[in-house]
């Protein structure tokens, strides 16, 4: 999931003659405007230029070829789970069990979003990468910071949202060195007047929302063997579902259920090893033959290597109450280099469906068998019902690190649609008869050999930054990366508590002169509808709203709004630091719609290979690696919550 390497210079390739007069006054010109230009030519664009003069707006070029297909929505699409909570609340990390990140609030529209301004802000007091999103339940907002994983409860009913409580748990400092990709936290889950979240040092905690008192804490992961906790839990039927990070540290991945009332472990299912540990029984009915067999989680590895085989559970969980299945992806196999582990290496880089009550595995789909590129499959699988070839299908939509966007039957694990959504060359496609990618042999990595120009890079076509789904347009809104890598395998050494990787993989910008794109995707056909190209990988999540406004943030610190139907940039604001968090929206006690997002550069892309600050020590201003050497010009560390409204 991370790069351990040096990179190389990268430069936004000039595309057009710059138009700085359109996008900047008083020095507010977009820093990359000499390379990137707002594509004008429509009246709306002229309006944006006017807005730009006031607000410092600039946008990267739209993908005009694709945008000509604007308004190519999908009729009849719907979120695949019932809504939860009041419409104005945001009670789960992704708003709902489906992972839609869609809100029915529509006070903020394509017509008035250009009047959106900052309502209030809140410093989290923590540097490093602020992934995830706040929760809003009732009149309270709940925030969880990166390490040391402080939780704040803010009272939205009072001016300035003062704190109701602050919860700072014990959290072992040594765990910081076991976190491959910055000491992030992707947020909390809520149920029964309790917020649940994970601590980096392997604890899950339950906090009473009324008092801020700790209800329980359970040590569930073991940092001494490379396990940390960064993911956001999901609560299903009184089970708090959690899993570890550590795919780069030689862990043996698992998912566990903790009793929401007591914190006691109810079940733990491994992603690797013999069937008994993986909880494979008679109800395991994967669609493809290659997923079936006895003890594949052990036999698809050379003897015993599965015990340090990665397949961590650090990404997003979704849930279908009707099928009673919880969905998640597993991380890359360890080590990255594959020559020590010939075989499929199940169930690494796979999408798994489990019974949340028992942990039983119901189906599996290994999207990258024998992954030798660090293509974790942990990205979210969004639960939607879509018309495919004229028939409504219950599907998951999953934008994998490997560069393919999958539309999958969520009852069976059958791949219905699989198309590349970013520039890629390691595989030529996915065979729908087997579910397996058609791998290009010349992109297979090896020890002692440098395989050049593999696309996407190990950061994937998309990483943890989650997509959103609007049932209004029927489209998925996807933050993506456009990066490639040169991969040199080397023999790794397993030393408990240190990385187990075995590769150098410097990254460069992908083809086309941009390194990220925010796009709209039609998952029924597997095609891009529109895209907004960005100079940097788009590492924030997406938010979709019934007002047909979609939101995302950028590593260089712009928070942006676009028209969900056409991709027209509508508004942007330069926040205090790069955005790697996920925007959310809620209705405040005053009845107004607000949009909130964390600023706070960090995470795998922001802190480890792009940031300019190496630690959270105030005196430490050392620089970092080189994949995005130009990023430090635009941002530095610091976590702040921004809350916006339309006056």
């Amino acid at each position: 999931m991370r790069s351990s390497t040096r990179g190389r210079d990268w430069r936004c390739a000039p595309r057009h003659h710059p138009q700085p007069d359109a996008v900047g006054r008083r020095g507010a010109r977009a820093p990359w405007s000499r390379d990137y230009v707002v594509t004008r030519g429509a009246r709306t664009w002229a309006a944006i230029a006017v807005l730009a003069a006031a607000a410092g707006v600039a946008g990267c070029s739209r993908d005009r070829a694709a945008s000509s297909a604007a308004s190519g929505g999908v009729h009849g699409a719907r979120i695949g789970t019932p809504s939860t909570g009041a419409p104005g609340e945001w009670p789960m990390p992704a708003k709902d069990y489906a992972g839609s990140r869609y809100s029915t609030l529509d006070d903020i529209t394509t017509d008035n979003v250009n009047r959106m301004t900052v309502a209030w802000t809140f410093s989290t007091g923590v540097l490093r990468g602020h992934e995830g999103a706040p929760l809003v339940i009732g009149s309270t907002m709940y925030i969880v910071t990166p390490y040391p994983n402080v939780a704040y409860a803010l009272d939205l009913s009072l001016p300035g949202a003062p704190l109701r409580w602050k919860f700072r748990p014990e959290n072992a400092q040594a765990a910081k060195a076991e976190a491959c990709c910055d000491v992030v936290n992707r947020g909390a889950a809520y149920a029964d007047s309790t917020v649940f979240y994970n601590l980096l040092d392997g604890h899950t905690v339950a906090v009473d929302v009324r008092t801020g008192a700790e209800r329980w804490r359970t040590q569930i992961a073991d940092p001494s063997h490379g396990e940390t906790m960064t993911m956001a839990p999901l609560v299903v039927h009184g089970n708090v579902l959690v899993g570890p990070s550590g795919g780069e540290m030689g862990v043996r991945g698992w998912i566990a259920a903790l009793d929401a009332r007591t914190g006691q472990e109810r079940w733990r299912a491994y992603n690797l090893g013999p069937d008994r540990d993986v909880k494979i029984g008679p109800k395991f009915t994967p669609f493809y033959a290659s997923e079936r067999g006895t003890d594949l989680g052990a036999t698809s590895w050379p003897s015993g290597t599965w015990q340090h085989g990665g397949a961590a559970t650090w990404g997003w969980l979704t849930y279908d109450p009707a099928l009673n299945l919880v969905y998640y992806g597993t991380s890359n196999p360890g080590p990255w280099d594959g020559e020590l582990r010939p075989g499929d290496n199940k169930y690494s880089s796979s999408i798994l469906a489990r019974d949340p009550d028992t942990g039983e595995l119901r189906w599996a789909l290994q999207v990258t068998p024998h992954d030798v590129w660090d293509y974790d499959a942990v990205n979210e699988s969004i639960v939607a019902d879509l018309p495919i070839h004229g028939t409504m299908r219950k599907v998951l939509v999953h934008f994998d690190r490997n560069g393919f966007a999958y539309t999958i039957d969520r009852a069976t694990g059958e791949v219905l649609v699989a198309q590349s959504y970013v520039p890629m060359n390691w595989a030529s496609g996915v065979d729908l008869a087997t579910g397996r990618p058609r791998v290009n042999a010349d992109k297979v990595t090896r020890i002692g050999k440098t395989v050049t120009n593999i696309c996407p890079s190990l950061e994937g076509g998309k990483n943890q930054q989650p997509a959103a789904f609007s049932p209004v347009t029927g489209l998925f809104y996807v933050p993506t990366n456009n990066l490639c890598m040169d991969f040199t395998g080397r023999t790794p050494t397993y030393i408990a508590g240190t990385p187990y990787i075995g590769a150098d993989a410097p990254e460069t910008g992908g083809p086309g002169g941009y390194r990220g794109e925010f796009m709209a995707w039609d998952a029924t056909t597997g095609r891009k509808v529109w895209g907004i190209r960005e100079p940097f990988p788009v590492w924030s999540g997406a938010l979709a709203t019934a007002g047909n406004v979609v939101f995302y943030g950028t590593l260089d610190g712009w928070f942006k709004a676009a028209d969900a139907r056409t991709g027209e940039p509508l508004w942007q604001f330069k926040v205090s630091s790069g955005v790697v968090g996920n925007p959310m929206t809620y209705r405040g006690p005053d009845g107004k719609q607000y949009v909130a997002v964390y600023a706070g550069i960090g995470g795998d892309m922001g802190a480890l290979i792009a940031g300019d600050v190496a630690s959270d020590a105030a005196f430490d201003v050392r620089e970092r690696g080189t994949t995005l050497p130009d990023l430090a010009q635009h941002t530095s560390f610091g976590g702040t919550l921004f809350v916006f409204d339309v006056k």
Partner: protein
Amino acid sequence: MGGRVERVTGRVQARACVRAVGRGNAWEGLCLAAWVSASIALVGCDRDGRAAERRVGATVVSAPGSPGTSPGASPGASPAGGNAVGDMDRGVDRGAQDVDRRVAPVVGDGRGQQGAAQASSKGSTPNLIAHPDHIQAGLTAQRSLAVLVNPRERDPRALEEGKQLFVSYNCADCHGGEGSGGMGPSLQDGRWHFGGSAGEIYESISEGRPDGMPSWGGRISDSQIWALVTYVRTLSAGKDVTTQSFEGGGTVARGGH
């Protein structure tokens, strides 16, 4: 050798503290606090026998008659007397001159908290203990290891060996290829949390550091640690990243990469 160093340093620091005490009673309290701190450190450092032995021997400086120590004894006779053999193994070269140079600024600037020692009231036993490491909040440790000489500094094989070990012991996976930075800090930029001298880097590798640098002492040989020190110190040679200029656009040229 260790015993002699302690005696010399002890005298210097005793003078510092006596001068400080002479300026007012407040310093006396501070010196007392330092004494308590040093006492705690004696216990606290005892993570394992080896570490405790080295830390006591290397950093706790005491004058004759100090409680809990016998600095006048021969090195092998007391836990506080250091382990001359072990230190020699690690390439320790603690000349009294070096130690005095390290301590001198403490005396010169009169900041008692940097060289504090405890002196009893006049006429009673002059109990004098200094423990500069533990009373320099926010500063890098001023351990006498800072003056260690790398025995493999000029060993032509050490550089290549260190380069290989940097990969095979997974240093590269945390600190980045060629130390360019990753989970762990960059080693190319010439900025150091815990000091960039050979001895300080040796200690960082051997003892580990609080934010998660593992302790390699006892797991790999001293010779290998010194080879790593040799290699690591080359990564930042000649680099200066004090100023980053973002003028001129395009990719920013930055030292260290």
